[in-house]
């Protein structure tokens, strides 16, 4: 156990979250190895987003441990967890909708690479930060027009910007909550490509519904069912697992 904690970037141990008598996370154990792309699947209401929210700090667990690089982060505030190297996207687009693309990215970068307490110099005069923002914009395939307002982007582009904001702090662990939800097939293909292009050292924990996406990116799959881990393993094992087929894959097809 001690050894695992040192090796894995994330170790979730006996995590539990209850809302009154409703248990949304029930004794969940889960690990993410460095560089692993770990996908969580499960029917609606399985507690997938609640799990991500507990790792990101948006929701405090009732019991259990969330060990990040050997440190228990369960119940810490989102901003502290973020600065410890965990970034996330949200299921519904969660951008600064009235700001330009480049301002969205600059805000995300400034907390680590800028001077957010500077109250005198114009923000866009920070050339290094602006350059960085443009590089990030290209990394998430948003072209090079940074002046577009976030709310005017297409849905798929907004999802890409979500990922750009999450990548800004150079996280070690990226939590993606349904990155392709609501996307057209073409947009989904672009998103798979984008995710594949991210550095292989970046560990990912990702919720996904689209089985094509799941099997094209996952190193490991964990199936959640009513808050419990039903199965966890390599994609081939999950595909062959009878219980999973019964409760989940069978339902989807």
């Amino acid at each position: 156990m001690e050894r695992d904690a040192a090796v894995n970037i994330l170790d979730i141990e006996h995590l539990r979250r209850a809302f009154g008598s409703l248990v949304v996370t029930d004794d969940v154990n889960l690990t993410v190895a460095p560089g692993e792309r770990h996908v969580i699947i499960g029917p609606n209401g399985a507690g997938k987003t609640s799990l991500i929210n507990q790792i990101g700090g948006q929701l405090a667990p009732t019991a259990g441990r969330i060990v990040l690089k050997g440190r228990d982060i369960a119940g810490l505030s989102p901003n502290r967890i973020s600065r410890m190297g965990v970034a996330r996207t949200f299921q519904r687009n969660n951008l600064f909708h009235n700001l330009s693309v480049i301002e969205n990215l600059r805000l995300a970068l400034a907390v680590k690479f800028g001077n957010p307490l500077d109250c005198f110099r114009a923000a866009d005069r920070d050339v290094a930060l602006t350059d960085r923002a443009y590089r990030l914009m290209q990394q998430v395939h948003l072209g090079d027009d940074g002046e577009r307002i976030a709310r005017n982007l297409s849905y798929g582009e907004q999802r890409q910007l979500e990922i750009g904001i999450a990548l800004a702090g150079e996280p070690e662990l990226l939590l993606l909550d349904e990155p392709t939800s609501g996307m057209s097939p073409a947009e989904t293909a672009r998103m798979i490509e984008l995710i594949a292009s991210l550095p292989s050292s970046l560990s990912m924990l990702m919720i996904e519904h689209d089985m094509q996406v799941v099997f094209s990116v996952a190193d490991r799959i964990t199936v959640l069912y009513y808050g419990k881990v039903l199965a966890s393993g390599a994609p081939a094992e999950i595909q062959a697992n009878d219980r999973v087929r019964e409760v989940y894959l069978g339902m989807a097809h």
Partner: protein
Amino acid sequence: MTDVTEQAELDNMPQPAIPPSEVTRYQPGAESWEDMRASADTAFGYDLVKDELADALAGIPFLMLTLAFSQLVFSVALKWRDVTGGSDGMALAEKPSFFGFNLDHSLVMYFMTLLFFVAAFLSLGRLINAPLGRVFIGIRENEQRMLAIGYATRAYKLLAFVIAGGFAGLAGGLYAIFNGFISSDALYWTASGDILIMTMLGGAGTLIGPPIGAAVFLLMKNVASSYSEHWLTIIGVIFIGCVMFFPGGIWGTLQKLRWSATRP
């Protein structure tokens, strides 16, 4: 004019932080520049304490608590006659001079206030374009996301509130000099209400909106009160109409019109 100055600081604040009585903060009996500086300093300190208290809350509860706190200070000021003169207030024995100019001349008073207004306006303009101001805007736009990015939004909100309070204190000092008199009435919650109305009327979330709102509000007040003693009702109806049909206020509506005019 002083109302205009008071206004200028409002919109830098993150959304829920509707300021408590802006006018409330001056030291009754500001008799010299020292006192006016003290007024701004006290406002900073006052906001610091209050915000720690109110910080756990947001939105409407925060607003109510802020008003309640202001009323508390009002009551203290009303009863503590030795210091504040209670409801009689305190008069300025002699107006201070401004770089050798006599502030008894209304023109001098006007231009001095204008000078402070322009200085405050420019520095706030500078602030919102600086990284710190961008953080404030980010929190107003989407606090949850700011947290997820790693900003300690509570600390930034506190900072915004303190900055706003400092400018309000400056305005309060000017107001006391302008009137030559100050009483605990200025601490009453309706003073906050006036400023809130001015902000909503002119356009919250912009720098120029609140000064416009303040000008319109004072104009309405003067015009309406010369026709009817129920002028507050008239202003109230106009305000409700404004909130319902022009949520962006005067400036926000103008901008929207201009924006749609330039688009095919």
